[in-house]
């Protein structure tokens, strides 16, 4: 396999001149291009995941069922999978229920593969501007008082295919670099108190033990309130794709700051200006300046059902979706069934948690005519999710990251839904 950083890089569009947008294969918009060209690597991964056709008894009450298995499997009838390319996979948001993403369907993004790590040999080194440079084993970290919380993780390149024009077709293709889990670990603040931070420490370099030695500088004061050193997800140890055996989680911040396979924390007075906070994960504005250290994911929402690629029938339709904000709680979600002319408040399902995904619902009756469905959310800071038009007016179309414009799904007269821009 050839190196895959650019062709499969979901994080930023690198549009090549002269190529039509649906045909080029580099950058974030390639999610759309790849899907259109059916170049997803689903054959291998999806085929492997596909169950064999089960032999179904005519009456399951008349034959003994299967015995238990040591590690459970989903029903042989369930086929939902991630879309996969070499550097990332996408969560099938349109097929999921509730807010928690099954760990095996959580999106992944890595910069040179998923490392194989023996947790017994893994070490975390904490050094730099600390009183006591310390090495922790995973077992050491698990001895600290622990915290579990529900939080979303969103890649800053999520939905980036939409900046330059209509990208993906489905919720998964457009917004699938987004997932929600219950994360368990030790508060970063507790570990840093243990090693004794020096007063001049203002930044923290977090480094992974993957082949890219992925590295980001974290502004310490902002991270200390909520950052966790996580070793578990949804009740069991992290998946390898999620950083096994240890990752950083900073709720509400862009996914790449939540360094996976974490092996080193170095405190310093200044940011370290690594490649991934200069050459990547910076937002290029129309005036040629680029925003740096844009870490918080702003409020966003999405109707997941019905959504692109699905089909509805006239009559009752429950509109279902997800909303979230990196700045705190979602306070309201409004839904439009007429392309943004009128808006109705959706009901929010409990729990409504800060920096976590909130599910919303709105009952609707489809009359069989063409229309456009949209949702927009407001968070507890008063921030309102912007239209695509308003977003592009400020940031242009080359910023690549941090797209949170309102998603519009067109309902055709035949009941089919598709991605449109208004």
């Amino acid at each position, binding site marked *: 396999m050839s190196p895959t950083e*650019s062709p499969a890089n979901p994080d930023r569009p690198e549009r090549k001149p002269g190529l039509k947008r649906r045909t080029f294969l580099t950058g974030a918009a390639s999610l759309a291009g790849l899907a259109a060209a059916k170049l997803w690597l689903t054959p291998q991964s999806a085929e492997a995941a596909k169950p064999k056709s089960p032999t179904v008894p005519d009456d399951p009450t008349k034959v003994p069922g299967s015995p238990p298995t040591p590690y459970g499997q989903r029903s042989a009838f369930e086929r939902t999978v991630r879309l996969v390319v070499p550097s990332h996979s996408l969560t099938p948001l349109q097929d999921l229920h509730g807010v928690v993403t099954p760990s095996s369907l959580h999106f992944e993004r890595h910069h040179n593969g998923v490392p194989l790590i023996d947790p017994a040999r893994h070490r975390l080194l904490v*050094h730099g501007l600390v009183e006591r440079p310390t090495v*922790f084993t995973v077992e050491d970290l698990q001895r600290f008082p622990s915290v579990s919380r529900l939080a979303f993780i969103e890649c800053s390149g999520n939905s980036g295919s939409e900046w330059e024009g209509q990208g993906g077709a489905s919720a998964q293709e457009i917004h699938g670099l987004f997932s929600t889990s219950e994360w368990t670990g030790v508060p970063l603040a507790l570990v840093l108190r*243990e090693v004794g931070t020096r007063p001049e420490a203002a930044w923290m370099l977090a480094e992974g033990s993957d082949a890219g030695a992925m*590295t980001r500088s974290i502004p310490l004061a902002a991270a200390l309130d909520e950052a966790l050193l996580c070793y578990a997800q949804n009740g069991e140890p992290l998946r390898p794709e999620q950083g096994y055996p240890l990752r950083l989680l900073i709720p509400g911040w862009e996914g790449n700051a939540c360094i996976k396979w974490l092996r080193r924390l*170095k405190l310093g007075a200044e940011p370290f200006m*690594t490649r991934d906070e200069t050459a990547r994960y910076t937002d290029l504005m129309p005036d*040629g300046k680029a*925003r740096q*250290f844009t870490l918080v994911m702003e409020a966003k929402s999405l109707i997941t059902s019905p959504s692109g690629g699905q089909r509805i029938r006239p009559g009752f339709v429950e509109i279902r979706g997800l909303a979230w904000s990196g700045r705190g709680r979602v306070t309201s979600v409004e839904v439009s069934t007429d392309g943004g002319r009128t808006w109705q408040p959706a009901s929010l399902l409990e729990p409504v948690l800060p920096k976590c995904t909130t599910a919303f619902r709105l009952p609707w009756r489809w009359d069989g005519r063409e229309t456009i469905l949209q949702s927009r959310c407001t968070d507890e800071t008063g921030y309102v999710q912007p239209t695509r038009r308003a977003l592009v007016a400020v940031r242009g179309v080359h910023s690549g990251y941090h797209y949170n414009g309102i998603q519009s799904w067109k309902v055709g007269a035949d009941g089919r839904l598709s991605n449109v821009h208004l």
Partner: protein
Amino acid sequence: MPDPRPAPEYGFGRPATEAEIKAWNVEVAPNGEGLPPGRGTVKAGATVFAKKCASCHGATGKEGPMPQLVGGQGTLATDRPVRTVGSYWPYATTLYDYVARAMPYQAPGSLQPDEVYALVAWILFQNGIVTEDTVMDARTLPTVRMPNRHGFVSDPRPDVAK
């Protein structure tokens, strides 16, 4: 006199040894802190690049298929911005850090400091940032002024009103 430093509360973990810190403490800061001994010329860099990098980045660093390393200066405010080391990266030290830790893609971390210095010299020369007789080392690299050094601003969000 009592030690003013706060004592550990739990006592988990163990002191890191100097050798452990040295082995992993490899990142390079914009002021050059962390750069190892060694040196490389543009000419030597051309050889290393042809052998270990050109198959992914192209013979001149422009062709790809992997990210373009050369060119793009003056394009950032246009309809077709091209972000390369030469047009976009604010610090030359970052190039050393990234190449040393993550390249070549199939054998990350395998380059010797002389090879990395040489590659950095060659890529910067191809971008017109240093001259062909440049010798890159821990002293000269942090003095390189990148064209987009002041092209970055802090995050002003929320920036889009309702």
